């Protein structure tokens, strides 16, 4: 683990069953950075995010977090919004409250302070007015705001987002990214965002981790997203 890095991946292979989607992954993530995990559909972005979060154990290698004030860092996760079944009759507020469950012991009620914190997170994500609306009935962009609020409700040291702007219109996309930029600027939260949207990554993030043909390149946006590389990415998307 290097001096000021929050996350280190050492010789990591990720995948499903025995099938490795990505192998020999070595990377470090600076504390307080806003990084974009860029790659075409199927390049392994979501798989890598899930392995970092512990949802999908890595096939080989080590995923190591630096401690935060002597404890493991709290992780906030914004999954892809289409994974949620509309059969659940949950309000946006109830979805955000789930983010506090990590601090509430099993069988205990969620107290007033946690509820107030959840409301504050909704405000920060610009979703306060959605609080009482059914989560399943929200638009794509509204759902993302609520999911960001839920991730903030975990009081995270590290926020991981899986394709937060996929399938939503340009206005909603910009407003979600503005919310993330504000949160990052205000809290200096370490953020890792998987996206295949080159424009979003180039406009909003500081560091890029580029998954390309099973290899990983990492660096500042200005160095990595050169005209030649962009041409290659666009060419990949065309094909």
């Amino acid at each position, binding site marked *: 683990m290097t001096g000021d890095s929050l996350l280190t991946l050492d010789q990591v292979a990720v995948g499903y069953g025995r099938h490795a989607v990505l192998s020999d992954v070595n990377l470090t993530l600076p504390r307080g950075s806003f990084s974009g995990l860029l790659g075409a559909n199927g390049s392994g972005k979501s798989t890598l995010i*899930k392995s970092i*979060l*512990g*949802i999908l154990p890595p096939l080989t290698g080590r995923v190591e977090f630096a401690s935060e004030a002597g404890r493991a860092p709290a*992780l*906030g*996760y914004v*999954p892809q919004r289409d*994974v*949620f*079944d509309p*059969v*659940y*009759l*949950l*309000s946006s507020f*109830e979805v955000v409250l*789930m*983010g506090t*469950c*990590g601090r*509430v012991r*099993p*069988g205990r009620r*969620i107290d007033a302070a946690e509820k107030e914190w959840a409301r504050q997170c909704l405000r920060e994500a610009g979703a306060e007015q959605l609080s009482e609306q*059914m989560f399943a009935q929200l638009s794509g962009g509204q759902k993302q705001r609520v999911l960001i609020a*839920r991730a903030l409700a*975990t009081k995270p040291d590290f926020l991981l987002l899986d394709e937060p702007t996929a399938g939503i219109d340009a206005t909603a996309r910009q407003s979600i990214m503005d919310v993330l930029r504000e949160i990052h600027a205000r809290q200096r939260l370490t953020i890792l965002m998987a996206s295949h949207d080159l424009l979003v990554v180039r406009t909003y993030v500081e560091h890029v981790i580029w998954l390309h043909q099973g290899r990983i390149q990492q660096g500042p946006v200005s160095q990595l997203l050169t005209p030649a590389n962009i041409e290659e990415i666009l060419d990949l998307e065309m094909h």
Partner: protein
Amino acid sequence: MRMEMWREILDPDFLLRNSVYMSVLVGLACPLVGTYLLLRRLIFMGVALPHISSCGIAFAFAFHTWGLIPHMEEGEHTLALAGSTIFTLGAILGFSWFEKRGRSLIEASIGTAYVLAGAWSILLLVKNPHGEHGLLDRLKGEIIAVSNASLGWTFVVFAIVALTFFIFQKEFLLVSFDRETAVTLKKNVDFWNTFLFLLIGLTISVSVLSVGPLVTFGFLLLPPLIAHGFASNMRQFIWGATAIGGVSALVGFYIAYRWDLPVGPTDVALLGVVYVLSTIVNRSIALRPATAHKSSP
């Protein structure tokens, strides 16, 4: 409805009072756990488990007849409870293991278990003259002879299940709604899933023992389906399903008693009618112009 007949049914000295109480208990408990089967899209499990439970009862009677299980005082009920519980909990642990490994696998395993349980129940029934009478009654959903002990046990088990659901609702909902986030919140998802399935299995095995597989499945599925159409939050959904189940069990008993019908199938048929009517009402509400039924400003 005849008021005298209602008074008779609800009288504490009514000859079939235990059957009334048992019907209502099953009507309250099965929809409570059925809501989670509906939420987790495991309706097929709701069909299979009662049959697996019946198969467990058939095996227990068969083992007893073949001399593999010694004779017990209090015999039949204990035997049936053991068979039902062992088979249901075993199946549910197996299903929860399969669920972790993918949806297609669990659907195939539930389907296989369902068809095998049905086949074995019939084979054992045909070859077991001692168990035939009791098991046939259960399969038909006759809820006539209910002992005080059986009623007491059922009440205790269902009360524990309901209380556990109430206490751990937050955890059950989290692991059901978003398993991945539950993992990131350091929740032991496997434990909570298995715990949830065990509660469902326990409710089903006790229910099948009391009222048979048909009625159990009817109460697992139909009240949650009806309640989901009208509920606007999870609390309304869960408690609405429970209330619909309880009231339907009572009204079903009245109809069965009034027209001399078997109680279980009457309950299920009544729930079916309510479901159809509720669907028609829901559709007609949905077809109305948007402004006509929007209550929020």
